């Protein structure tokens, strides 16, 4: 496959060059070279087990805790190779936020979920917390529903509200990039739609990379799409092109449901 075809004309925020990742001896990501454009929504699609989550977790180095992981190649964010052992992990994770597959608010109050990041990174003084909590809950459209129960446990919320809260929690660190790993897979279709609408709002300020195995979601909600298959990036391009005129046979098979 020709690498040059996986490039876009936009300014890119993440660049990978010959990225390889191994779990012990298992080669999970193979020679991935791609550029993820800034302030867009980029979807990573592909069948289960193809390496989508693994790729996403490279971008904030969340794979590091897994024993036996080894990475080769380069991943540039803001001109810095984040695979460099000397990279400042705290700074990286402030810059690259993450939203998980299952909503995972902390077992704390709604308020404390929002202020957790502010507190551990000492981003602001305590007296500003109330204003900030309101701001971020507004941003994810939770404020009106939750303003009277900020000190209730976050676990008492509906799954959709929990996922919104998790997004707000990520926003508090003022990230440049938000990684979302199948953020809607625990939600019903209506909640899914509303989260997608929220993503459209967020992309004005943030670059979003979303993993999904739901092709409709990728087609609806993303600007760019990459298709991963067995650890390889088969194709990357503008979403409409990938879904209407894929260049690769494998991509075509996958999106048309004739798989394998």
């Amino acid at each position: 496959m020709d690498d040059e075809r996986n490039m876009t004309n936009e300014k890119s925020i993440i660049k990978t060059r010959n990225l390889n990742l191994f779990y012990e001896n298992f080669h999970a990501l193979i020679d991935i070279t791609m550029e993820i454009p800034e302030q867009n929504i980029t979807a990573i699609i592909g069948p289960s087990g193809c390496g989508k989550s693994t790729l996403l977790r490279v971008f904030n180095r969340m794979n590091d805790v897994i024993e036996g992981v080894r990475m080769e190649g380069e991943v540039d964010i803001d001109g810095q190779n984040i695979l460099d052992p000397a990279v400042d992990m705290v700074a990286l994770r402030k810059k690259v936020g993450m939203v998980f597959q299952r909503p995972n608010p902390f077992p704390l109050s709604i308020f404390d979920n929002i202020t957790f990041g502010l507190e551990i990174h000492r981003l602001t003084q305590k007296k500003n917390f109330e204003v900030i909590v309101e701001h971020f809950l507004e941003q994810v459209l939770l404020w009106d529903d939750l303003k009277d129960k900020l000190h209730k446990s976050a676990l008492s919320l509906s799954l959709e509200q929990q996922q919104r809260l998790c997004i707000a929690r990520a926003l508090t660190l003022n990230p440049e990039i938000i990684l979302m790993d199948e953020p809607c897979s625990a939600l019903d279709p209506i909640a899914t739609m509303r989260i997608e609408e929220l993503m459209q709002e967020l992309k004005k300020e943030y670059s979003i990379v979303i993993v999904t195995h739901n092709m409709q979601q990728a087609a609806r909600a993303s600007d760019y799409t990459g298709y991963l298959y067995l650890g390889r990036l088969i194709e990357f391009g503008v979403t409409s092109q990938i879904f209407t005129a894929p260049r690769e046979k494998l991509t075509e098979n996958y999106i048309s449901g004739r798989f394998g």
Partner: protein
Amino acid sequence: MNYRAHKLKEAVIEKIILLSGITSIVIVLLIFIFLLKEGLSLFSSVSIKDFIMGRNWYPISNPPQYGILPLIMGSILVTVGAAVLSIPVGIGSALYIAEIAPQKTREILKAGIELLAAIPSVVIGFIGMITLSPLIKNLFHLPTGLTALSGAITLAFMAMPTIVSIAEDAITAVPRQYRDAAMAMGATRWQTTWRIVAHAARPGMIAALMLGIGRVIGETMAVMMVTGNAALIPHSILQPVRTLTATIAAEMGESVQGGSHYAALFAIGIVLFIITFLINGVADIYLHRNRKKGLK
């Protein structure tokens, strides 16, 4: 036919389980009734106030005095001392074992803790008596090393395995997704452990403390061996004391069945029963809350 046999078997098993559940409740009730029956007669000659608040425990003088205040004070001093020593160490160890220790160290430590739990209390008391009390005697230049402090330290050793293993379970049970979320926000391991994991495991950890302390209050042998057994109101932790449990164990043999001394010992039993019942009750409530994952 097979189906009916199956159903019958199910029903029988269910009944057996129900029966064993009821049996344990009935036994506890019977014990309590027995205690009441033997102990309440004391209060025909001694008022409850004189019993609880009385400063003198002279069961064999004439007339006898049955004030258990010194014994209560002794129990409290030893128990609180043991709690103060064992809680921070126990919780710290649990956090270390569950969150920080590498796999191998963790297994060795867990095995060690289990071993500690398996040591009979007489043995711990014996070790305390021959090693700890001389040490305390020399360290503080005391006439005797058999003090409340010796008791507290000895009991702390006995509470620790309970506290560590139950607290460790509670910490390990905190779902990974919380840790992932904290890590993804750039939290350090310490911040994650302290602000999220310890918080989420708090109900379980409190239950661990309660059960550990419960064990301390009920403990008799070790305490009897290292505290000096003087039924006096203690003014410092470096004085000999005597606990409620030690009193029963030491004097039951020499009391006359049916006599007032005998009844007084059972009345002490009632007091102990109520205390342990309360502690277990509180621990239960916390464990229950933990299971339901409820907060606030």
